Structure formats: structure tokens, C-alpha cells
């Protein structure tokens, strides 16, 4: 495997019970870059994203076939501890989900359980600044995370993920609850973060993919005969520029030009 590959998906099929949600995905996600997952609703973007840090383990009935190679190991090897995986591969969810703790503790929690020994006050401030939410939080660090607006909560969750200093950050539609200005701030954050982290982001916003992503994966779903629902698959994975300007598949062109989905 080339050294600039962060994660490699090899013939990955993910099922919920007997329903195959995404099938036969092959992908080499590059290190130190931002990769966007786009595609119509229900095609399995979140499912694939959650597979990258074994978050699907928490969904009863969800199973994975194939291999996900990260740092020379198959993440789904029996000897791999999923907790360790999630320490190295952090996640920001679609819905803001702060802990029922103070803003300060929301950030400190992850750092503390990951054995952070440095100056906690400094880490909290740095993380909140990176997530572009410091100004709104600096006077109320002791107040509950729920006292923030939805958009601010989401940026708090991004700060929380950054604070644990993972190698990879997975973001599932992190900006779907944000106004355009905070969205831009988050995007700046991502440009900043990709110097030290690898980022995978699910987005429904084409402009956002163009603005932040180096690589883009287009997923689609189609009904299969005898199947109980639509099965998702990877249509095309390439440099973002190619996906948006000269896609090799007709369905990609239809989707990115807005004639579809």
C-alpha cells in the first residue's frame, strides 16, 4: 500500500440484518487530504463513514464484510480494540450531540480519557478557537453545552473531536445545522486541520464539496431484483475537480449538475 494512503476499503459490503445497504466498495482514502462523500439520500454515505471507525458496531444487526485497512491493520480484525480505533479516528455527527456537561467539560472529557496531560484550559481554548466557537463560549465555559444554539452546539462537538487529537476526523454532514457564516468558518477550520489530520466529510452541499474537498466519492443507490430496498454502491471516486468537471459516469454528471436526486 502506498504511504500516502490513510485508509483502504477493500470489497466492503455493509448490511443491516439481511439488508445490504452498501455493496462492494473499493476505495483508497488519501492521507492529509479532505475527502467528500456525496450522493442521494439513503445511498449509504453515513453507513460507510461509520464503518471507518467501527461506529456501526453499536448498531444492533449491522455487519461488515471485506477489509478496512488503517495503519497496516484491518480495523475489523478480531485483535483490534474498537475503542482504540475511535481514539485515533474521531467523529462529528449529523445532529449536534453535546454531553450533558459544561462547555468546558464537553471538551475536557475526551482529552482526559485519552490521557491528555497538558494544560487543560489551554487545550479547551485552542479547540474552541479552531472550531470557530470561542467567542460565543469564552464567557460561559461553566454553563451547560445545551445552553448554546444548535449551530454553536455543532461547533462545540467539532471542538470536542479536535481536542482528542485524532489522526482522522469523520464528519457526517457537520454543517447541515449551521448558518452560512459558521459554515464558512468550519470550512476554514477544515483547511487548517488537514495539515495535521485526514478528514472525511459527508455533505449534501455541492459547493461545500468543491470548496473543501481534494477528493470526492460519489455514491448512488439502485433497486436490485428480489432485494428489499435500494442497495448503495460507489459510482466514482476521483479528484474533486474531475468529479465536478469531467466525471466518467453519466449518473455522476447528472447528480453534480443537479439533474438528479
Amino acid at each position, binding site marked *: 500500500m502506498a504511504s500516502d494512503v490513510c485508509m483502504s476499503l477493500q470489497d466492503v459490503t455493509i448490511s443491516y440484518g439481511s439488508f445490504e445497504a452498501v455493496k462492494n466498495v473499493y476505495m483508497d482514502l488519501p492521507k492529509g487530504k479532505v475527502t467528500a462523500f456525496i450522493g442521494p439520500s439513503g445511498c449509504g454515505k453515513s453507513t460507510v463513514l461509520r464503518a471507518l471507525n467501527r*461506529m456501526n458496531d*453499536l448498531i444492533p444487526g449491522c455487519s461488515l464484510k471485506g477489509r478496512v485497512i488503517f495503519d497496516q491493520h484491518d480495523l475489523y480484525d478480531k485483535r483490534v480494540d474498537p*475503542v482504540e480505533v475511535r*481514539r485515533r479516528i474521531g467523529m*462529528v*455527527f449529523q445532529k449536534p*450531540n453535546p454531553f450533558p456537561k459544561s462547555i468546558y467539560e464537553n471538551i475536557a*472529557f475526551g482529552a482526559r480519557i485519552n490521557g491528555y496531560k497538558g494544560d487543560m484550559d489551554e487545550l479547551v481554548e485552542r479547540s474552541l478557537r479552531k472550531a470557530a466557537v470561542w467567542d460565543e463560549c469564552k464567557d460561559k465555559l461553566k454553563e451547560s453545552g445545551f445552553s448554546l444554539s444548535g449551530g454553536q452546539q455543532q461547533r462545540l462537538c467539532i471542538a470536542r473531536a479536535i*481536542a482528542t487529537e485524532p489522526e482522522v476526523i469523520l464528519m457526517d454532514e457537520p454543517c447541515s445545522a449551521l448558518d452560512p457564516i459558521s459554515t464558512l468558518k468550519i470550512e476554514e477550520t477544515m483547511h487548517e486541520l488537514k495539515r495535521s489530520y485526514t478528514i472525511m466529510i459527508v455533505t449534501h452541499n455541492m459547493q461545500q464539496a468543491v470548496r473543501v474537498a481534494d477528493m470526492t466519492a460519489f455514491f448512488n443507490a439502485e433497486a436490485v431484483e428480489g432485494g428489499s430496498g435500494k442497495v448503495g454502491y460507489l459510482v466514482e471516486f476521483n479528484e474533486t475537480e474531475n468529479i465536478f468537471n469531467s466525471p466518467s459516469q453519466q449518473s455522476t454528471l447528472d447528480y453534480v449538475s443537479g439533474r438528479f436526486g
Partner: protein
Amino acid sequence: MIPLFLVLIYVLIQGGRLISLQLLTELPPAPGLEGGGIGNAILGTIVVTLIASLIAIPVGVGGGVYLSEYAQDGWFSKFVRFGNDVLAGVPSIICGVFIYSLIVATRIFFDQSFSAMAGGIALSVLMLPTVIKTTYEGLLLVPQEMRMGAYGVGASRFVTITQITLPAAFTPIATGVVLGIARAAGETAPLIFTALFSPFWPEGLFNPIATMSVLIFNFAIMPYEAQNELAWAASFVLVIMILGANLLARWISHATRA
């Protein structure tokens, strides 16, 4: 509501007028004598309820956590929850007889028969279903996203439960626990078979101990005016304690919701 007020007013009038420092701190008089108090029974009720809580809270919260966070939602979990609901409906006297035959009759603790410990265990059996049920149901209300968030920053299941999920469900669990304690504190039947009674100050956890509910039971039917009055006074104290516990439960659910 009307029966509640009638009971309260009657107890308050009959018992409240007797309350004095002496009553709260002295031993009951020998039959036929005047004066004295219910100090040993107040202390005994506190001791027995404390023992019950020390057993029922960890076991019950642990059971609720197991059902909600560890068990697959299969037949076993359903069966345990059903069993728990049945246990909640078992008359308290049966708990007493059960602990009597298990602990008192077998003299399992240092060859002692009736003891504060046996009484506490009997009350813990009564409290357990409430604690399990409120813990389980409280944890079900915690959104799955909250757990996901904790796992997402690299928390193990244990850390997630102890530091995120349980604190998030603190209000319903604490409310249930307090109500469970209040219920147990007033029980008589299971204590008659287990803690028995004592006219003296508590002599340790493995000896019989006085409690207010059993004191009421014993003294209310005695043909002595002094004992009858102490029974009323004990009723008053017990009602006030249970009322206080219920107010505390309400306060917890209001104060922590904000």
C-alpha cells in the same frame, strides 16, 4: 386527595401535639410507666433503611444498567423485566416471610436470629424492583446520539455508562430511588419477621432493632395510654419523613431539569 388529607390531618393532630425534644431522644417507658420517647425507633428506622439502600441502590442501578446497556433485547431481558414487575407487586409480608426463612430461621449471621441486618435485607428486596425499573427506564430516555458522542471520542462502554449515560439519567433514577426509600421506610410487615423490636437503643447490626413502623404496630394496641401516645407520635414522625422524601424527589426532578 381527600383520604390523603384526612389521614394527614388526623395524624398531625393526634401525633403533632406530643412532639418534644424528650420524645425524639428518649427510650420508650416500661409498660405502665409514663413519659419516655421513641428515640431508639427513629434511629432504628434510619439504620434499617440505610442498610436497605446500601444494598438496593448498587444492585438495582447495576441491574437497570445491565438491562438497558448490556443485555440484548431478547427473551432473557424481557423475562427479567417481567419478573421484576411481578416482584414489585409481591405483598410486602411475603418478602418478610421469605427473608425470615432464609436468614432469621437459619441463623446465618453469627448464629443470630432477628437482626437489623435481616430487616434491612427484607426492605432492600422491596426497594429493588423500583430501583431497577426507574434506572432502566431512565436510561432508555437517554438519546442514542449521546452514547455515540462518547464512543466517538474514544470512550469505552464502561466510561460511557459511568460518566455520560448514568449522569444524563440522574434525575429519573434519583427520583425513583428516593421514592423507593420512602416506601421501604414505612413498611411494617417485613420488619416484624426480621428486625423484630427492641425497647433499647440499637445494639449493633446483628441484633433485633426497634423501628417506628413496628413500634406503631406494637404500641397502638397496648392497653396503656403512654404507649398509645408514642404510637401516634411515631406515626407523625414517619409521615413527616415520608412527606419529606416525596418533596425531595419532586425537588430533584425540578432542580436538575433546568
